[in-house]
């Protein structure tokens, strides 16, 4: 059997697929959050960031393909492993207690599926504009960048460039409490998913040991907490009225 066979065909191999794709997805959601947090600065930031990403062209597609492939593989492995796991206990116990499995670990499938559902909604919402079409970035007036958008000191998008108004799209979207609530539940479950997942990944890759498992656990908990609060902040701030749409006049003017 070759390497691919061993990885795709064995229990441990598939777990490794889960872990590696999980890391990629985690990396993405971290990056995504950091990008999104720019919403707390001038609209120039997040809108410039959006324009920067679009400007990447083929590179953006590479990233998207990697992410989609990761998601597909992650879900594929999760499904196959779960089905095998169900089959492995064909007759259930009359009474069975959990000895130490954490809540997050027991909710992996639920949290995963909800995250998936959210992901689809999220893409439909902010990437494709299938829902809330009225406030989708393509329906909103374009925005003119007030300042240069820099990445690592290099100017990537010049001031004066017209961009989509991501800022307003997000703020207007989140002003609907249902949308915010779904978002909050989803990132909550995603954080819960990562609460087990980030820890679990170290075990799957063989890097975890009791010697530092306590420390690892603390880091993971802290990470998930920060991640959750970070994500909560955006719809939270919108709902609390801390984030308002910038006056559309300026944007409209540039149209």
């Amino acid at each position: 059997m070759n390497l691919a066979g061993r990885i795709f065909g064995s229990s441990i191999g598939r777990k490794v697929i889960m872990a590696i794709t999980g890391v990629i997805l985690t990396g993405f959601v971290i990056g995504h959050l950091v990008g999104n947090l720019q919403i707390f600065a001038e609209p120039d930031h997040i809108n410039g960031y959006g324009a920067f990403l679009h400007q990447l062209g083929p590179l953006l597609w590479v990233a998207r393909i990697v992410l989609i492939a990761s998601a597909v593989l992650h879900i594929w492995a999760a499904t196959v492993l779960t089905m095998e796991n169900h089959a492995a206990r064909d007759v259930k116990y009359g009474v069975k207690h959990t000895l130490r499995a954490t809540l997050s670990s027991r909710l992996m499938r639920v949290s995963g599926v909800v995250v998936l559902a959210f992901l689809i909604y999220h893409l439909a919402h902010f990437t494709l504009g299938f829902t809330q079409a009225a406030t989708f970035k393509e329906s909103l007036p374009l925005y003119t960048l007030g300042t240069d958008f820099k990445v690592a000191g290099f100017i990537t998008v010049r001031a004066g460039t017209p961009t989509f108004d991501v800022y307003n799209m997000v703020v207007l979207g989140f002003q609907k409490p249902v949308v915010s609530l779904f978002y909050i539940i989803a990132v909550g479950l995603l954080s819960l998913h990562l609460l087990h997942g980030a820890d679990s990944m170290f075990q799957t890759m063989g890097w975890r040991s009791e010697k530092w498992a306590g420390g690892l656990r603390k880091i993971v908990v802290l990470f998930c907490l920060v991640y959750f609060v970070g994500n909560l902040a955006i719809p939270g701030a919108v709902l609390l009225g801390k984030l308002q749409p910038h006056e559309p006049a300026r944007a409209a003017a540039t149209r």
Partner: protein
Amino acid sequence: MVAENSTQPISVTLRVWRQAGPAAPGKFVDYPATNVSPHMSFLELLDVVNDGLTLKGEEPIAFAHDCREGICGTCSCTINGKPHGPGHGVATCQIYMRAFSDGDVIIVEPFRARAFPLVKDLVVDRSAFDQIIQAGGFISVRTGAAPDANSIPVPKGDADLAMDAAACIGCGACVAACKNASAMLFVAAKVSQLGLLPQGQPERDSRVLAMVGTMDALGFGNCTNQYECSAACPKAISHDFIARMNRDYLKASVRASFKPAASSATGGA
């Protein structure tokens, strides 16, 4: 739980899974037991109940047991939802009635896993474990061919860690406790024991690949890193060994795919 050294007898009800054979239907049946000494072991209570059943003309409860001191790995019930019952780091045969209170209903079930088909009542067939060992859980050493025992020093830390792993009694509680009925802890313990010792190096890669392959083929579930196995293990074997095996498996997979193999020239006359 009764006070540690109380000698007050207690009364309990055993709710036991009865199933005449692999294909027969099974059900829970209640057996009251009165005047039970707290110093009695749980299996001794089963003995007493069985003698009572025999006298009444009923079939006694079939249950697996042998050494009754927690080392042979034969005993195997799930008691009140936990493989090997209450207590940490002990097997069913090391459970004493002082762990229960007067009036308790004690639910007794077989270990449940597709890879451990039921034989009768509380007895299951764990020969899948033997098959995993047969696939590679050994160091190939022909009798009489070994060098002097002290010719290869083994760092004490490695030897002790290997012993931690080697303490496995092959009872199957890890499988029974895992919500996926995974055998990872059992396999990892053997892979780690041999992988930690210098003597185990020559076959290290082939061993882990063969044992994991066999484990998968036998219908055990997959690990979801919840560590129920090590919590139920009567020898408290650490799930660290699972991480170690994962690493070994990965490395071995890579090496097996890329390391050049010698051409299989045979010897001369």
